[in-house]
């Protein structure tokens, strides 16, 4: 092996494996040039390490200081209630999705509003006409109401008749059952008398 096959810098920088270290040490014991190179590299590193670390002019801020304060979303994420928030968010998303994807409601066509022009130039009020219209409207409402009351009374009478008929039928059934029972009792009494 010649000198170039040994990585002397890796040896000095403690990057060689145990086998390589032994090989370098054995070679340096027999090679003055490599021994001197190792010594110079070691001196270089020793000089570099002789320079002490600088003390800090001041300590840097800690986490408890304002500058390290977590953002609101980080606090929320780190809080134990995050599962609750996540569930609420999922539920809201589901409701929103349902609302957006459900069938559209039936369109209701509204009568067009009165022309704006008539509002812009109002005619003088016709009080008699208005009273007449109100009276007609009240008459229509009264007639409609009377008709509804009459229909309701007819429905009530019909229901009453049907109920009465149903009760009559029930009483007839009960009477028939009583007769059957009475006949049965008489037959049983006759049987007992004959046996005695």
């Amino acid at each position, binding site marked *: 092996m010649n000198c170039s096959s040994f990585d002397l810098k890796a040896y000095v920088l403690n990057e060689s494996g145990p086998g390589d270290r032994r090989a370098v040490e054995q070679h340096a014991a027999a090679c003055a040039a490599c021994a001197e190179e190792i010594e110079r*590299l070691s001196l270089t590193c020793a*000089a570099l390490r002789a320079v002490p670390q600088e003390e800090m002019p001041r300590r840097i801020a800690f986490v408890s200081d304002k500058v390290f304060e977590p953002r609101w979303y980080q606090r929320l994420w780190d809080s134990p209630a995050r599962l609750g928030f996540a569930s609420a968010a999922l539920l809201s998303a589901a409701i929103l999705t349902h609302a957006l994807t459900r069938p559209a409601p039936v369109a209701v066509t509204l009568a067009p509003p009165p022309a704006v022009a008539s509002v812009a130039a109002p005619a003088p009020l016709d009080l008699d006409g208005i009273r007449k219209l109100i009276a007609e409207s009240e008459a229509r409402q009264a007639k409609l109401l009377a008709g509804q009351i009459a229909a309701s009374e007819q429905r009530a009478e019909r229901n009453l008749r049907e109920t009465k008929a149903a009760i009559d039928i029930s009483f007839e059934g009960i009477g028939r059952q009583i007769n059957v029972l009475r006949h049965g009792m008489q037959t049983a009494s006759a049987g007992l008398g004959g046996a005695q």
Partner: protein
Amino acid sequence: MIFREVEDRDLVAQARRGHVDAYNQLVSRWEKRVFNYLLRLVANREDALDLTQDVFLKAYQNLARLEDASRFAPWVFRIAHNEAFSLLRKPRPGEEELADPAFASPGPRLFPVETSLAVAAALDKLSPEQREAVVLKVYEGFKFEEIAGILGCPVSTVKSRLYTALDLLKQTLAPSSGLRGAL
């Protein structure tokens, strides 16, 4: 290896569950090293301090993205690397704008003693990429693979930068033969 009663991964796990004291402990554990790493890159105490603050703020805000909690340190140094080079890429205003003399830029010589002056002068001859590789390896003690992860480049690139830097530093800090005693 430094023995720690509580490992970084445990503190990261606690911090993720909202225990601010756990993150405070991580800050206490790493702030000085991150600050010195940044100081050696940007050569300005005020910038290094501001960047250190930003680094730990970003790390806290993105703690959930750290895949392997046991690799908190390389991850924080990766953030620090990005912050430092983003600052270095910006055009710098005049240094006279620094009002507080406590934060006045020390220039290339950051440390007061003679050895420190020699080291600072030697480091100043390196490119920012070479200097960063030296800082991460020699001062912070990361492995080649970790440095590659921090810098976002292949291990071969890390070794190339580091080995070239060592050759340059060696000429100043460990000259051959009779000049060696000067240090």
